[in-house]
Structure formats: structure tokens, C-alpha cells
């Protein structure tokens, strides 16, 4: 006999407004269905009614954990539609900022994931404190703490402030040390390993057929990282590895993100030291003249949560259509599949390891 329990949309650990309908038999999950759409704001349609550079703020609210990444993906799509080249220095600055954003996002994920397996807010608080260091850096670079809107066509709204590099290095050194500490804190706890290892296994074929991307895919042994495979900006000039683990369980996904945190720290340092001097400023918004030369464009970006693809049909003045393949939407679809047969408590461990942001899933 199965019992149907309705988890969410108001629940302590559904990461916002996710509703899960679970059929459980005793303590085993027989069937699990995620219901989404509680945060649907119709952004794709909204964008059609706005001029090109009025849309970045909407884009940032999609994934409020890594806003700049979304902003950048959209602006890059517009740039491609316009046929605009990004300035050399702007490419480097954008790379550094995107990686900083990835660090912030992964730190937030780490805290919430630890919470999902029953860690009483300790790691959560620590991670938020460290994330704040990154947010401070991003604030220096863009002027805002959370919703930056600092991407402009061909560059950025402003260059990095003087002394940014030193402060960034200082913060990164500290965070690197802390990441090691967090790893020890969790992995030396047998209870944590028990909760993560062998839970929510998604093998290689399953991961590919479900279409998951990002750390979730790399946790299942597929080496696919947009930064590596379809390099954009200066990722091909920087030295980094796509982190892959083959186990496909919650622990593999956790480990991939932890390793990625380190890779991102390395990437920022690298980008900061190799950064050429020059001009990074983008065009003034009112000067943009949309051309329909390159009407249909598709841009792919590696966001902290996975691959984001933006498909745009450009019109003069405003986009005719913008379609977003958001990483969380696809990754979340895997939840039902991989939680079948696991225990009730594991649903949340798996959900935590998928790293969902509901704004991103619902758009």
C-alpha cells in the first residue's frame, strides 16, 4: 500500500517553491513527481516586449543565486545577434567575474545541501559568510551586491576598480582554505558519507538520456563542460580541467562541485594575472542599432547549475523570440527518475545534490 505525501510548495527544504508529490511505501519512494511553475513569471514573453538592453534585469532574476551568469548569457546572445565583438580586456574581466559568480553560487549550494541532509545550519552560516566575501568583490566590480546588471554590449558598464586584484586574491586565498575545511568537516563525518554515497545513482546512459548538464552530468562520468568543449571568451587560454566523477551518486555530484570550486578559484587567479590592460567599457545603451544580419542565434554557456542555451530570433528594436534552455528545469526532471526506490529522507539529499533554483526552472 502506498501513501501519497505532498511535499511543498511550502516546506523547509524544497529550495523555494517546488512541490513534490511522492508515493511512499513504508519508507521507500515508489514514485515521485516534481510539480513546478509556482515562480513562473513569463520572462521569455516579457523580453519580447522590451528593448534589448532593458531585459538583463529580468534575466538576473531567473537564477537569483548566480545572476551575473544569466545576465552574461543574455548579453552574449544579443552581441552575437548584433555581430558585435567583445573587447579583449572585457573578455578577461567577464571570465573572472563569471568564475567569481560560480564560486558564490557553489558556496550557497554547499550550505543548503548540508542543510538538506540534516546539518543544523552550521555549514550554511559559514558558507554564507564566505559567499559574502565574493559578493563584496562583485559589488566592487559592478556596483551592486546581488543583481549586478553590469554587462553591456561589447564590454562592461565599468572596468575593475584599482586594487581589485589584490583584494580578490586575498579573498580567494581565504576561501580556498575554507573549502578544504568544509570538505574535512563533511567527509570526515561517516554519517554524511552514509547519506551521500550510493544514494540517487544516475548512471552515464541515464544522465545522457535525461539530458542533464553541468555538475550533475559530470558527476555521472560524462566529461562535458561548455567552457572546455565549446570555449567562449578566454577559457581556451586558461588552464583548467573539467571535473568528472564516474559514480553518479549524490557524493559524486557533491565532489564535482567541490573540485569545481577549486578550479574556479584557480581560474580567477589565472585570469586576473593574465589580464591585459586596455578598455573594457561596453557601448552606451542608446547607441545600439539592432541589425537583422544574423537573425537566429544560439549561445551556450556553462552556468553554475549546468548548460544554459539561449536561442534568439532577433528583430530590430526587440527580440522576436527568446527561448531559454535553463539548466535547473532539465536537471530537476531527473529527480523523479533517480529517487525511485530510495528512502524518504534521501529525496532531499538528492534534491540538494541537484542544486535547484526554482526561478531558473520556472522562468
Amino acid at each position: 500500500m502506498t501513501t501519497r505525501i505532498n511535499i511543498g510548495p511550502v516546506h523547509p527544504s524544497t529550495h523555494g517553491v517546488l512541490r513534490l508529490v511522492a508515493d511512499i511505501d513504508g519508507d521507500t519512494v515508489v514514485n515521485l513527481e516534481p510539480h513546478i511553475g509556482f515562480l513562473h513569471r513569463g520572462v521569455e514573453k516579457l523580453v519580447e516586449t522590451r528593448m534589448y538592453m532593458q531585459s538583463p534585469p529580468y534575466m538576473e532574476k531567473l537564477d537569483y543565486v548566480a545572476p551575473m551568469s544569466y545576465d552574461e548569457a543574455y548579453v552574449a546572445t544579443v552581441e552575437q545577434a548584433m555581430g558585435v565583438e567583445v573587447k579583449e580586456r572585457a573578455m578577461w574581466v567577464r571570465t573572472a567575474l563569471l568564475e567569481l559568480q560560480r564560486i558564490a553560487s557553489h558556496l550557497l549550494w554547499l550550505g543548503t545541501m548540508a542543510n538538506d541532509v540534516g546539518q543544523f545550519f552550521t555549514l550554511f552560516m559559514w558558507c554564507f559568510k564566505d559567499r559574502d566575501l565574493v559578493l563584496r568583490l562583485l559589488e566592487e566590480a559592478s556596483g551592486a551586491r546581488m543583481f549586478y546588471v553590469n554587462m553591456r554590449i561589447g564590454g562592461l558598464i565599468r572596468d575593475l576598480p584599482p586594487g581589485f586584484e589584490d583584494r580578490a586574491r586575498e579573498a580567494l586565498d581565504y576561501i580556498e582554505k575554507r573549502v578544504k575545511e568544509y570538505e574535512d568537516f563533511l567527509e570526515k563525518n561517516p554519517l554524511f558519507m552514509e547519506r551521500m554515497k550510493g544514494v540517487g545513482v544516475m548512471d552515464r546512459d541515464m544522465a545522457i538520456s535525461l539530458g542533464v548538464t553541468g555538475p550533475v552530468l559530470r558527476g555521472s562520468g560524462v566529461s562535458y563542460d561548455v567552457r572546455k568543449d565549446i570555449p567562449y571568451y578566454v577559457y581556451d587560454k586558461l588552464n583548467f580541467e573539467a571535473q568528472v566523477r564516474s559514480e553518479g551518486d549524490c557524493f559524486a555530484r557533491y565532489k564535482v562541485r567541490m573540485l569545481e570550486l577549486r578550479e574556479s578559484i584557480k581560474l580567477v587567479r589565472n585570469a586576473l594575472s593574465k589580464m591585459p590592460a586596455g578598455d573594457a567599457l561596453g557601448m552606451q545603451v542608446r547607441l545600439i542599432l539592432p541589425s537583422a544580419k544574423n537573425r537566429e542565434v544560439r549561445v551556450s554557456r556553462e552556468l553554475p547549475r549546468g548548460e544554459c542555451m539561449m536561442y534568439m530570433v532577433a528583430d530590430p528594436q526587440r527580440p522576436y523570440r527568446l527561448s531559454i534552455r535553463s539548466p535547473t528545469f532539465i536537471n530537476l526532471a531527473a529527480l523523479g527518475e533517480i529517487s525511485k526506490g530510495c528512502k524518504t529522507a534521501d529525496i532531499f539529499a538528492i534534491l540538494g545534490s541537484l542544486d535547484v533554483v526554482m526561478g531558473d526552472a520556472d522562468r
Partner: protein
Amino acid sequence: MPTDSLFAIAPIISGYLQLSGTAAAVADTIAYAVAVSILIVAFDYIFGWVERKTIAKIQKRHGPTFAGKYGILQNMADFVKLLSKEHTIPKRADKLLFLTTIPLMLSLSIFLIFLLPFSPTLLETDIGLGLLVIFVLLSFMPLIIFANGFGSGNKFSAISAQRSVIMLLSYEIPLIFVIAAVGVLANGYSISGIIGAQSQWWFVVLMPIGFVVFFVVMLAEMERPPFDIREADNELIAGWLTDVSAPYYTLALFLDYSRMFLGSLLISIIFFGGWSGPFLPPVVWLLLKTFIISFFIMIIRATTVRMRIDRLLRFGWTWLLPLSLLNLILTYLLFIG
């Protein structure tokens, strides 16, 4: 010291008032009840605050700072706020179970604290089978939680109720074996006898395995992390307390700390020599030990992750049970046989 009378009350105030007979017994009982009640409330209140502050320090926060010096009045403010809130009873709930179980549990845990002696002279009663009585009554707790969980007519509470019974299955038998080993060592189950038997060596030294098992079981009994499986807030919202509204929730919080007090008291009495210690008065020693153990339990809360219910069951049967048996056999062979 151990007597089998149920009413062996220490002369607390009857000596001052120069009473005798029944009047003395009544006066001392009332005095004792008042003293211990104050102690329990004070402990619950102070520990509510200490826990908030400790966990805040571990998490690099400040914790309560606003109400009173160092936020000492914060719990009072919360208490008043919670009591002033509306009390709702869910439509589906079984009113009788929903309304009686939490007060019943609270009174049960307070009653159990009353059964424990605080010093050689400050004790309500010293039953010959004291420890057994305590653990028999303590094992009712999960059953009352079960009744409450099913009584509130909420699916999360019902799951919590099922978990409560599974937890009972996983730790009750090892607990009994540890108690048996304590009985073997102390040559009886009277609590002052147990403390007396530790005058040379504390039982934590004599049977470390038994201590580990007992500590783990008490954590589970007190619903402290990593065994707060019943009210796992990340999964079951608040477990069996999901539908409990403010005034009853206050009682539940009170219950939580009373149980922690009880558990720490039991640990310090059974394994850390209870009130024995130099220089300071016995009550102070006992409370000091209890305080340190509670503090340790708080640190565990802040630093571990929750165990899964099926793992706890497996842990109970594959580790706790053999270890407790081993402990019993070793104790018998080393100290008796």
C-alpha cells in the same frame, strides 16, 4: 542509604519548622517539589539560552543579543509571544490524543526527574529498583509520540509516528543490556547505590563500551541530533509537532529541554559518579556534570548530519546490540566472575 520505601523523604524544612509525622512528610514533599520544579525550569530556561548562544558561536553568529544582557531574556520574550498566539486544533486531529499527549509527556519527563536524587540528602525517594523504574517509564515516551503523531491526522506526523516506533525497536534492547551491566556492577538498581559504587572508579572507566552505547541511546531517546529523526525538519517539517500550534509548541520546547536535562542527569549519575566530587557540595557537582554533558550534546547538534531511519535500525542491531551484550559479558567476567 538505599531504602525500599516509596516515601523516604529527606528532612528539608521539617527540621526548621520542628514538624513530625505526616505533617513533616507533607511539608518536605512540597518543599522538595518546589525546589526541583524551580531547578527544572531554571535549567530549561538557561539551557535554551546557552544552546542558542553556543550554536550561534559555532556558526559565527551572535545569537540573541537584544532582550536583556547578552540576550538572556530572549527566551522569555519568545515564551510570552508563543503563549499569546492562537491555539488551533486541526480538523482531522483526534482531539483527545492531540491535546493530552504533549502535557502527558512533559509531566512524565518531569516526574522522572523527580525520581532522581540530586544529593545524598536531597532526594524524594530512593526506590530499590529505581533505575529500572525510570527506564520502564522512559520507554513509554516513543509510544506517546506515536499516539500524538497519529492523533494529529497529518501525514508528516504519521510518518514521524512510524519512525518513533522503529527507533524504539532499534535502541531499547541495547539500552536494557547496558542497564543490566550497570546493575551487575552496582549490585542493584538503586540510584544512590549506583553512585556509591562509583566511589573508587567512575563507571565510564569501568565500562567504556557501555558508556558509548548508553550515550548514543540517550541521544536517540532525547531526540537530539544526529538522531532527531522523528522531527527531522528538513524532511518532515517538524515531524510529530507539525500541526502543534503555539501554546502547545511552548510545552513541546519545554519538554525538549526537560528531556535533555533528564538524559544528561542520567548519564552523569550512571557513568560520571553523580554527585561525588571534592570540595563543592554534591548538588553543585551533579549539576556541573550535567551541564558539561548537555553542552557536549549541543556541540554535537551543531556539527553533525542527521542519520537515516533505516541506517539507525541497522546501526542498532549490528553495532549497539552486540556491543551492549559484549559490555554485559565483559563486565560480568571482569568484575564478578
